[in-house]
């Protein structure tokens, strides 16, 4: 049985700068064996940079980082031998067939030809691409290429799989298929580290999450903890016809007090509240008539928007 308390990745005051630009500004986190750990954040928040440091392809500028208890600076190759990586760009070889991509990649890990072929066949089965084994990668759809990249990341039976936005750019069907495979992996006890924009899926898959913003971790915990800590039980979504960013920001002013917090987004206003009925009654009392009202339970997306949402609105404006 794997030791679930074993720490696979440990970062303390980890930093990375590119010239003047500080992409990661001192982050601390620990990832334990067997857990699914998520990095959430807007584009440019520093997620991918952090992933690259953990993947031992980018040297931290300052702070400490250990992966499997080792130092990526001096033992990068040995660490990478135990990692599986699904990069944002698949980096599959379009000239090679699906099967060859896996066998050649297995070779990078010193896996012998016969074992590589067996393992490639197993993994193609796992990602449901067996029928396409002999096709060239360039003939596959985006979703299939993604699944192949996931299969490839598992070729060395990694102790930790790093997935950088595994479902970005995929159509909904392809996305569900990828997430379903990730759930399978999790059930098999594979430790997973991922970045994503899809909060609902992260909420279901991840045991623990951190939210990054401008190179810092601004919140961390289990999805439930994050929701309990940062948002109310319920959320009421208000839309006002075609009203957009600035009009909504102005409207939001008039909503003061109808909920615990008001968050104007580019297309709607979110009212965080512990009781949606009370909020609806308050809206009626003030004679505020949105074109649509949707009451729902708070999700991780609300946490994300509440913690980083203001920045998005400013970007739009």
């Amino acid at each position: 049985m794997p030791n679930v308390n074993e720490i696979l990745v440990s970062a303390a005051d980890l930093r990375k700068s590119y010239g003047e630009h500080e992409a990661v500004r001192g982050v601390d986190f620990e990832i334990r064996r067997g857990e699914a750990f998520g990095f959430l954040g807007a584009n440019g928040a520093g997620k991918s940079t952090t992933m690259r440091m953990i993947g031992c392809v980018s040297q931290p500028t300052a702070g400490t980082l250990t992966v499997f208890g080792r130092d990526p600076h001096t033992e990068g190759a040995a660490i990478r031998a135990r990692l599986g990586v699904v990069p944002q760009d698949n980096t599959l070889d379009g000239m090679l067939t699906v099967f060859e991509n896996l066998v050649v990649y297995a070779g990078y890990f010193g896996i012998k030809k016969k074992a590589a072929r067996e393992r490639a066949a197993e993994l193609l089965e796992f990602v449901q691409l067996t029928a396409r084994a002999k096709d060239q990668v360039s003939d596959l759809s985006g979703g299939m290429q993604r699944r192949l990249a996931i299969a490839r990341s598992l070729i060395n039976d990694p102790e930790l799989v790093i997935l950088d936005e595994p479902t970005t750019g995929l159509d909904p069907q392809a996305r569900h298929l990828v997430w379903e495979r990730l759930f399978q992996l999790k059930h098999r006890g594979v430790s997973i580290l991922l970045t994503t924009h899809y909060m609902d899926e992260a909420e279901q898959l991840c045991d623990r999450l951190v939210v990054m913003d401008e190179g810092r971790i601004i919140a961390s915990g289990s999805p439930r903890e994050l929701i309990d800590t940062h948002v109310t039980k319920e959320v009421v979504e208000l839309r006002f016809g075609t009203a957009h960013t600035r009009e909504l920001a102005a409207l939001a002013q008039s909503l003061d007090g109808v909920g615990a917090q008001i968050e104007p987004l580019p297309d709607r206003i979110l009212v965080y509240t512990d009781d949606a009925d009370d909020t609806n009654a308050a809206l009626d009392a003030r004679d505020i008539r949105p074109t649509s009202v949707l009451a729902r339970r708070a999700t991780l997306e609300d946490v994300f928007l509440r913690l980083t949402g203001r920045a998005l609105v400013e970007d739009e404006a």
Partner: protein
Amino acid sequence: MSATTAAVDRTAPGTTAGAWRAFNLQLALFRHVWHGTVFTSVLLPILYMVSIGIGVGAYIDSASVGGLTYAEFIAPGLICSVAVMMLGNDMVFPVFGGYADWGGHYLAQRATPLRPVDMLNGHLAYAVVFRPFTNCTIVAVVLAFFGVYASWWAALAVAAAALVSAAMAPWMHCWASSIKNDANLNMIFRFAVMPISLFSGVFFPASEMPAFLQPLVWASPLWHGTELARAATAGVAPVLPPPVHIAYLVLLAVTGWFAARRVIERRLNF
């Protein structure tokens, strides 16, 4: 899924193992394109020998090419030229594309135990060892049918071709690793491969070139390689003692390797 767990190497590979693993990618790619090399290795030398070696050769006085027939004169240079031509295929786009966001093999390898130096060595092993010793050997065998060799020492012409590759390949790797815009890729053909192929004493003695171009001739790896190869195929003494020609090519190869290692390590540290 754990059936093959035991077969996975959990340690960092040594230098040789690293290069071998990276080399295997090139070999897998070669299996998809080998038929294209039939043209460069078989048809091209035949065309050259028939059109230039025999055709043009009929007009050439053998005294002007060191007492050899013209076919004998150009054969060793052709073997080395094929090596240079292949570098144009193997060391330009495949290197540039290795860093490309949409599918670069160097980026893929970077996530594995392979280090940048392994990727460089693996790619060079393909371009400098595998390609010359397969394709240039075929060229040399094809040319044998034209009766252009003085002895079995001619086999060493392939080694000379490999030396030319070794001297040029790492520098081409540097170049292709350094540029960011693929529109500049062709510059290496216009300003390096093409002039080197024309002005290296392959088709006429380099001493016939104007004096101001002589330094370029002496700088050209292909000229040094052709001199060595001609010594092997025709038994004529090269312009410089063979160890000097060899030393120059080795010097280029070694300095080029250090430069290429530096460039690829920088390029792949994010």
